């Protein structure tokens, strides 16, 4: 396992990630299992649109979406921003995946992902999970320090491993 441990002690590789239900950037209630649609899923928790580290990290994700869009792979991002802020952030980035709003901090403590050093905004600590289609955790990255986040190459390697394990025709049919 090349990923560092996620901060949430119960979200280690091999465990089932909770099927979160939150409003998306349009305010429409969504569930993670619905958003995965049977595909591998990269799930990112981030502090908020205002954080320069998040802006830098998301520029990389936007570059990766050009590969994910043809690779039967899903991407979902969660923060404590309101839907209207997420929608603007998403549009500004040029992102074409779903953003979820946990402005009510519904899951931040349950997941053990509260950034305790920010007592004003009480955001999520930046964390990235690569999930199998059934929402089992394949890998987790603690991004409290920027270099703890996965590089795009880390994500490619994880998605290759997950895809290889869930696609029965990974080996070229003969």
């Amino acid at each position: 396992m090349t990923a560092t441990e996620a901060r949430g002690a119960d979200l280690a590789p091999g465990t089932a990630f909770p099927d979160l239900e939150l409003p998306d950037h349009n305010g429409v209630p969504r569930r993670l299992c619905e958003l995965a649609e049977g595909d591998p899923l990269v799930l990112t928790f981030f502090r908020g649109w205002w954080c320069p580290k998040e802006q830098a990290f998301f520029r990389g994700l936007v570059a990766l979406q050009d590969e994910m869009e043809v690779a039967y792979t899903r991407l979902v991002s969660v923060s404590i921003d309101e839907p209207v802020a997420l929608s603007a952030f998403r549009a500004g980035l040029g992102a074409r995946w779903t953003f979820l709003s946990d402005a009510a901090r519904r899951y931040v403590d349950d997941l053990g992902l509260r950034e305790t050093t920010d007592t004003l905004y009480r955001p999520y600590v930046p964390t990235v999970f690569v999930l199998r289609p059934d929402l089992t955790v394949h890998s987790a990255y603690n991004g409290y320090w920027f270099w703890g986040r996965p590089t795009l190459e880390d994500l490619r390697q994880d998605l290759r491993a997950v895809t290889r394990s869930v696609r029965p025709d990974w080996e070229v049919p003969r």
Partner: protein
Amino acid sequence: MTRSAGWVWLARTETRPEGAVATAPLTTGGQPAGWLAAWPAGRKPVPGAVRADARVVDPDGAAASISFVLLPRDRAPLFDDPAVSGALRRVLAGPPPDAVSTFVRDSSHFAGAVTVRRDGQDLADDPFARLAHAERLEVGPGLFGRVPPVPGPVIQRYAGAPWPAAGFPAA
């Protein structure tokens, strides 16, 4: 991990068709413009039918405005044509409609699309209108539902199913 790709047959007819699971009259400018109907996957019900994402069909759905693009077979671009991919990206980036589905006749060509709105937003910015003439129609109740926005970022079809129907057929 696989699951069935859900699709239905969809066809525009001059008269109310028989045997459809959902049917609604069409009007344009207040004048009758035929019927639009859906049938379950299986044997093709009428000659002009195309496949669409099953999730857009709801026999209990309210009346709606639609942008309807249907290309003749001899003018249908490849589904992987960059112009089609660009339209799909614009759908994912833009304000979500109540429902949207592309149409397919076979495993490799784009046959058209339907975009459903009830929010009064202009359908003139239908991304698929860049590919072919888009007809603005009013559709009566009983055909189109309201579907959650397409999650993205995937723009590929699953085993030839009409986008955005997701999931590969079970092996």
